[in-house]
């Protein structure tokens, strides 16, 4: 493996919670990697383990009841099993995080300028004046008008979109190499969502960062990611370039997911396709494919044996399915 050129290498990463009902594998053995200046999308339904996966890669876990196995090497630093003290060295400067709800991710009793200053002064050792100048620069960078004035205000005086920009500015303060964006637009109005996504995209190129975009909204990842990981029940079921996943998917779940999102081209009053059944109980996973109970193409083998990720035709395209959908590439190109 060419690990030297990779920013993040995740191998067999599993996060298990000890619950009253037994061990719950929120993430059950996930491997992937991420190159520099790349945007990776992680998609899945609620409860598919995408948020737990992103937090595990960050090294953020509740202090008890959780075991993490496998490895996640971020720019040469093994996150799994690292002490809080060691992780504090990479937090902010190697990896930073943008949260889902900008209403709760800013401290309501601290001026926003001070919230950006904090990490500049504490982590980068800047003095007061330099930190303020840099903070204003960052506010400008994330597209906040009249940043000198905004520097002084409290989060409660800003709208959701503006706050999310501030959250991004805070994340950028330590010039991280990887930006983890966990549902960065879910808490925002639809009109603001596109602005924030464009901003992230633009900053990624300008600052030469990598971005992991965790979302349940396929529209979010469609145009802005280079690669997509589809998760189901804590595992990767399909992984590949954005084009492959959208147009040449082989796993029935990916197709079901794509079909269940509304399209502008649909005639009005079209019923949305839904996936029958519900996501599996992670405490009672069968030995077979987790999607088997809801799959239209299910066979006996699916129920008894779990499919592993297998390479598809295109390089970098993987899927976990015993009965993959026929490839559509040939049909489309003709």
């Amino acid at each position, binding site marked *: 493996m060419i690990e030297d050129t990779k920013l993040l290498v995740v191998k067999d990463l599993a996060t298990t919670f000890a619950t009253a009902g037994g061990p719950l594998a929120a993430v059950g053995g996930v491997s992937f990697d991420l190159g520099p200046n790349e945007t990776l999308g992680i998609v899945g339904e609620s409860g598919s383990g995408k948020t737990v996966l992103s937090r595990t890669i960050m090294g953020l876990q509740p202090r008890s009841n959780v075991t993490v196995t496998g490895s996640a090497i971020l720019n040469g630093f093994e996150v799994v099993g690292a002490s809080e003290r060691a992780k504090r060295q990479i937090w902010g400067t190697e990896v930073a995080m943008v949260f889902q709800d900008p209403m709760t*991710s800013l401290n309501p009793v601290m001026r926003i300028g001070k919230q950006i200053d904090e990490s500049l002064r504490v982590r980068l050792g800047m003095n007061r004046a330099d930190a303020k100048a840099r903070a204003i620069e960052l506010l400008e960078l994330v597209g906040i008008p009249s940043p000198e004035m905004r520097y002084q*205000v409290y989060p409660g005086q800003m709208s959701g979109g503006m706050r999310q920009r501030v959250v991004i500015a805070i994340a950028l303060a330590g010039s991280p190499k990887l930006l983890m964006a966990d549902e960065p637009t879910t808490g925002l109005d639809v009109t603001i969502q596109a602005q924030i996504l464009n901003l992230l995209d633009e900053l990624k190129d300008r600052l030469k960062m990598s971005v992991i975009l965790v979302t349940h909204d396929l529209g979010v990842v469609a145009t802005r990611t280079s690669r997509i990981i589809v998760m189901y029940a804590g595992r990767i079921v399909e992984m590949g370039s954005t084009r492959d996943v959208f147009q040449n998917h082989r796993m029935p779940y990916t197709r079901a997911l794509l079909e269940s999102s509304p399209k502008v081209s649909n005639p009005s009053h079209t019923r949305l396709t839904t996936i029958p059944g519900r996501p599996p109980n992670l405490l009672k996973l069968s030995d077979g494919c987790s999607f088997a109970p809801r799959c239209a193409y299910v066979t006996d083998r699916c129920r008894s044996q779990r499919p592993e990720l297998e390479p598809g035709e295109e390089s970098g395209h993987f899927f976990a399915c015993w009965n993959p959908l026929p490839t559509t590439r040939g049909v489309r190109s003709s």
Partner: protein
Amino acid sequence: MSELLDEVSLVERPEKNKPLGVLFWICVGWITLNIIGAIFANVLPLQNPLFEDFNAINAGPGLHHLFGTDDLGRDIFARVVYGSRVSIAVGAGSMLIGFGIGAPLGMLAAYRRGRFDAILTAIMYVLLAFPAIIATIAVLSFWAPRSLLKIILVIGLASVPLVYRVIRTATMAIATKDYIIAAKVQGATDGRILVKELLPNIAPIAVSFLLIGIATVITLEGALAFLGLSVNPPTPSWGNMINESRTVMAENPWLVIFPSLALCLFLLGLNFIGDRLRSHFDVTEVKL
């Protein structure tokens, strides 16, 4: 990025805070007056609270003795003002001890959780289950000789579990908020998060509880004084003045009315300020 400028209109003007109200400021004035009186009692033109004027025994309120005199001819006004010293000292001193120990422990437990929290909370709840007044009465009855410092210490320690519980609950509500995790993944140390992020957020709750706590503790001192377990006579305190006047209530009602009134108004003022501050700072997220 010009389209972003449209967003300026979405930024809210700083909201004008609702005024705290006239009654609030009257209460603040009253409490301040009491505190000033207590601190400067020996400088103010007051009569000696221990001087026994045998020419005016059980006198009613008048020009010479504003609130009248007690059965030994001592000036009640002077005694009420001097009496506030004990009450205020006990209130402030024991809450200082209670918060000094209870608040850091409560914050730490709520932030760290896990075994540390479980053990500490179990201990505190066991202590809470035992009535504080019985404990203080028991300790003060046997720990002779009584002094103001001992009373403050005992009441202060007895208030630790209460403070711990309030602060821990308040911190827990904040500790899981995203901005705490955000500070953490920006590389902030635990100490920094506790002091810079958590403390300012629980401060409004802590301050209101502090004021109400002072009021409660002053009542407790009154109860102890009534049982003769506070400072020794002839040092006046509101509690022991009420206690001593019990026997002469029929002949000289002023003797019981004035210290009771002083105690009552002081507590009412504190409670009102605490309550008003709590509702004032009760920041339910600004509606956008």
